[in-house]
């Protein structure tokens, strides 16, 4: 360890660093455990959101199939021409143990039959019900995206925290402790040398005087 000065002030700095690292290690360990505990709930939520999405998509496709069969593809395609804009939603963020995760709010995909652009007179409830099912799909897509990206962010954070805990546990703290040990040893040695030197001087002085 050539770069470390074996001085008392360096020792004090190192002691502070070790204390800080150990505190950080304990906090990060708690954070990691907390995130892992939360993760199980999030996995369940994401799985449920995914399943709901798949189910609703299947239902919507079935409705679409029936509508196309009964109304004709040309009629359905004609109604689809009226699609009004891109669905809008509000994207916010929330904090889970220091991790910023997305929160999709104000899901306003559902429209009344008079707000969909087409006239009631020129369409049937088959179109309404199919549109309604696809509006539900959009809502579930947003929920699944929210759950999945939360899960990804938390998983990423667990990985980062795990690496930090491991680095502190097996590299930084042991390194700092070995540096402290080195300085302790060097200081002790210097003290011994000093004592020995003083003893030698004392012996020389006593020999001269005698």
């Amino acid at each position: 360890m050539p770069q470390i000065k074996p001085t008392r002030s360096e020792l004090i700095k190192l002691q502070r660093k070790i204390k800080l690292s150990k505190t950080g290690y304990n906090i990060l360990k708690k954070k990691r455990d907390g995130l892992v505990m939360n993760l199980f709930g999030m996995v369940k939520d994401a799985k449920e959101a995914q399943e709901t999405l798949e189910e609703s998509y299947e239902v919507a496709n079935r409705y679409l199939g029936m509508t196309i069969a009964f109304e004709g593809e040309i009629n359905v395609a004609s109604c689809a021409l009226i699609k009004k804009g891109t669905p809008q939603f509000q994207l916010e963020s929330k904090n889970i143990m220091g991790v910023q995760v997305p929160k999709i709010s104000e899901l306003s995909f559902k429209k009344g039959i008079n707000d969909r652009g087409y006239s009631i007179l020129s369409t049937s409830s088959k179109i309404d019900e199919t549109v309604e099912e696809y509006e539900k799909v959009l809502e579930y897509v947003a929920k699944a995206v929210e759950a999945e990206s939360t899960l990804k962010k938390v998983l990423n954070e667990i990985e980062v925290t795990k690496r930090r805990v491991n680095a502190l546990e097996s590299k930084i703290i042991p390194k700092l402790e070995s540096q402290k040990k080195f300085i302790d040893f060097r200081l002790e040695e210097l003290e011994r040398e000093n004592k020995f030197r003083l003893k030698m001087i004392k012996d020389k002085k006593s020999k001269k005087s005698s």
Partner: protein
Amino acid sequence: MDLNVVSSEYWLGETNYSYLNTRVRAMESNLFRSDVYMKLLNMEVSQIARFLGEGNYKEEIESLSREYRGVELIEHSINKNLGKTYNKLIKMSGKKASKYAFAILTRWDIHNIISVLRGKYSKATAEEIERTLIPIGELPFSLIQSLVKIYGYEDVIKRLKKIEQFDFLDETKGIADIESELFKMYYKKILETFKKENKSLFIQFLRTEIDIINIKNIMRMRRYGFAIEEEEKNMVEGGLFLNIENLSSLLREPEKEFLKRIKKTPYGSIIEKHWQEKTLFYLEESLEKYLMECAKEQFIGDPFTIMPVLHYIISKKIEVENIRKISRGKASNLEIKIIEDSLVI
């Protein structure tokens, strides 16, 4: 795709009922019987296309097979065949059929105009709009195609306003209002045209159709809620059993009272049968089936009238719809029972 449909009043000759009746009877004999539908129900989509390509739809299947495949080929072919058949029939029927031609063919004009306007309103591409057009109608199909090439929604309406039957349109109104007005004006004009024949079977059919449209719409409004200003827009005047006042009060009736009153009409039993269902899907299907069956039964009349032609028109429409339901139902993996129940046989 252009079938060169031109306004019927210009090219129709004199009506010869005995000739017409013989031709129509021959054409009726080519329509599918119930056993053919049962056979189609057990076929795959490709087999249905092959079956149609070997029979009455050969010409259309062959001409469209380069452009479309599978179920799309079937749907476009049957539509093209329907257009060709109607054209042939109206030409054969002569001058006395012109007002019927107007009544029947204008429906497709309205469909095509609405599709163009919807596409223009949402700035869809010309290709997207063209895929939703059906080459049948009182207006020349080339006119409809030229509308697709016009730049904007307002410009299309301005162009349409130059045609007498669409001069009521207003380009400042939204698409939903224009759609409602087109439909309402269509029924209004037909009822005016046939004013003197108020008890004719054709008018009875049209008025039953208006009743069914209104019932379907009040059921939708009851389910999804409605704004008072929207109520009138969604109802058509001239129903056989239910006028606008009746419909308006029915819309506000509590469940029990609604059922009690609707039971007094011929549609009561159908509504009651589907009342508990979560969806209006099957109720609408049953009402449409009822309408088609009524028409099929009613239009058997005197051979020296237009009735055999109307009977054939309805029967051909039923055939085309049945083929579409079977092929689309098969392509969407619907249960055979659902498809079978929806067929008008």
